[in-house]
């Protein structure tokens, strides 16, 4: 949105893809909380590896919902699993419908479940949107956010002060260049 390297990242579940945390075996399903997003996500980005065995079909499902999406062809690394329409929150499960295991990345924090049992790891979910909000629609909210939770060292005007200082800085620099760069 404001950075071109993450134009569509709108949220995450607070877990980084630091390393492989488990292997999803054939017919296994690992479930993990989705986390929060600033706008409705279209897909979940997870980091997977197949160790040369070829892509195994991965199904994204949501407990209590019959909606699902399946990803069949993908390389090792970050891949996107499409979130079916009308599903936006709660827990998302990734099931392996192939014949060999798939590594998946996350952190060693308890949070994911396998067959309903909590595991000592948590799979990293990055929530992406292919239709992220525009600059103009979020700028006001972003600037209001700048000074929040600072107990007197900020406020809702802090972002606007930052903007004013940026304008003053650029104007002074350009004015000085026009004055002296001759």
């Amino acid at each position, binding site marked *: 949105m404001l950075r071109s390297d993450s134009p569509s990242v709108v949220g995450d579940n607070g877990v980084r893809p630091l390393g492989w945390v488990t292997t999803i075996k054939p017919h296994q399903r690992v479930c993990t909380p989705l986390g929060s997003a600033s706008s409705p996500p279209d897909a979940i980005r997870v980091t997977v590896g197949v160790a040369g065995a070829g892509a195994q079909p991965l199904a994204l499902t949501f407990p209590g919902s019959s909606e699902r999406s399946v990803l069949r062809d993908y390389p090792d690394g970050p891949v996107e699993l499409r979130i079916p329409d009308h599903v936006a929150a709660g827990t998302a499960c990734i099931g392996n419908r192939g014949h060999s295991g798939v590594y998946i990345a996350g952190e060693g924090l308890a949070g994911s479940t396998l067959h309903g049992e909590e595991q000592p790891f948590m799979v990293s979910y990055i929530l992406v949107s292919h239709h992220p909000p525009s600059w103009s629609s979020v700028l006001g909210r972003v600037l209001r956010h*700048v000074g*929040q939770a600072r*107990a007197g060292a900020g406020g809702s005007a802090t972002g606007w002060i930052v903007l004013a200082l940026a304008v003053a800085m650029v104007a002074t620099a350009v004015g000085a260049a026009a004055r002296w760069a001759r």
Partner: protein
Amino acid sequence: MEAQPVHPAGQRRRRLRLPQDPVRRVVLAVFVVALANGLLWSLLTPPFEVPDETAHIAYAQHLAETGRRAGETGHPEYSDEQAAVMNAMAVQSIVGHPLQRTPPAGGPDRSADAAIQQATRTASRSNGGGPSTASSQPPLYYALAAIPYRMFSWASLPVRLEAMRVLSAVLFALSAALAAWLVAELLPGRSWAALVGGLAVGLSPYAAFVGSGVTPDVLLLLIGTATLLIAVRAIRHGLTTRRAVALGLAVGAGAMTKLTFLPFVPVALLVFVVLLWRDRAALRAERRGMPGVIAAGVAAGVVLPALFVLWVGLIGMPIMQAGTSTPSLSPDQIHVSNTREFASYTWQLYLPRLWFMTELFGGRITPDIAWVQGFAGRLGWLDYDVAPRVIDVFRRVIEIGIVLIVAAAIQWRHALWRNRLALAALAAFSLALMLVISKAGYDFRRTTGTAFEQPRYLLPIAGVWALGVAFACLGLGRRLAPVLAIVVVGLLCLHDLAGILATLARYYA
């Protein structure tokens, strides 16, 4: 005769009159721009999100509250108040987690505010000061930061933190102004050169981000730039008692700010000795004579370290204080240091690897990774960057700049030769610092397996960067150089704005 009425306003107008000297005007303009930028970044970056700011705040708070330096064994690193505030602001969950934002509006922000206010009223401020990544460092920056801290001791910790950041922003702006002055000294009669050189420091998003945080790196930036300027002025205009004292004070202050400054000390001493020899005739004619100049310079150099030794003696603390460090690899994983490998490491850290050199540490040591990408804008606790295309453009501009510097060096070779002593001094300061960084980096990687180098370690030679940017403009020739300077100022503004946008996206979007 009637007495003339007094006009206080008129007097004030006279007092605020702008300097007539063009160099002073440019230096003032650079100071104003850099101050706006520093204040902007001090407000933009969330509290505790500058590298190691948690440890620096703990040090400053402990010194302000107890009059003692940090690193006291048996104490926790953070006071109860700081720990509670960091917890309320979810600092540990944001640092290193580039997708985590600061507490948003609509509940979490009010809860955080309430928890911070509660900590301000009830939590201890003086029970921290234990060993940390900062506690082995000298105390000068923290002693200065304690002044705004004490001025706002009635307020919440984020307010005191912002007060300390404002001090840092002023130090940052002074650094940019001194960098402009240094350029004016070596490229006289070209106002545009001083302007573009000073703004290359003052508008750098990386320098502004670091320089507006609670960190001794900003004081080191100022003192490093001041040392270069004083040395160059002494070389160009002759050594005097005042310049000897200024050089001594700068060196003493740098040594009391951060250990990274120590490589500057022998180079400054060498410059001092060379100038004493070169200017011996003029110094003998001075009122105090050569012994007086030597005594004044040396006394100025040792006054702050002597005060420091006296202070730690009075409070019963050691001169070298304990710190914390990154866990070491197991002994069987640490490979033995050797001079040849260190030489190769040093080369590869600053220059492209040559065909006969072994790729060290998995190829993770390149000037591009260590410095170009870093100065382009590796921000936060190294957990986010400016957009990749900004880094690409920055890289291309650096490459073009190097070509222009070579072209300028050929065109202006006679002027360079005339200034050979000043340029040799700048090169010696730079090489000494770079060598010490590579030695520390080599040992750190060998023993911990992790990277050490961060662009901020080169901030003391920011004046050389300023000079390089201004000199590169001359590569287009005398007539086009000012035009290129305008373009460069525009690019510097855009670069800074890219850093600001990346920061908005990182913490608040």
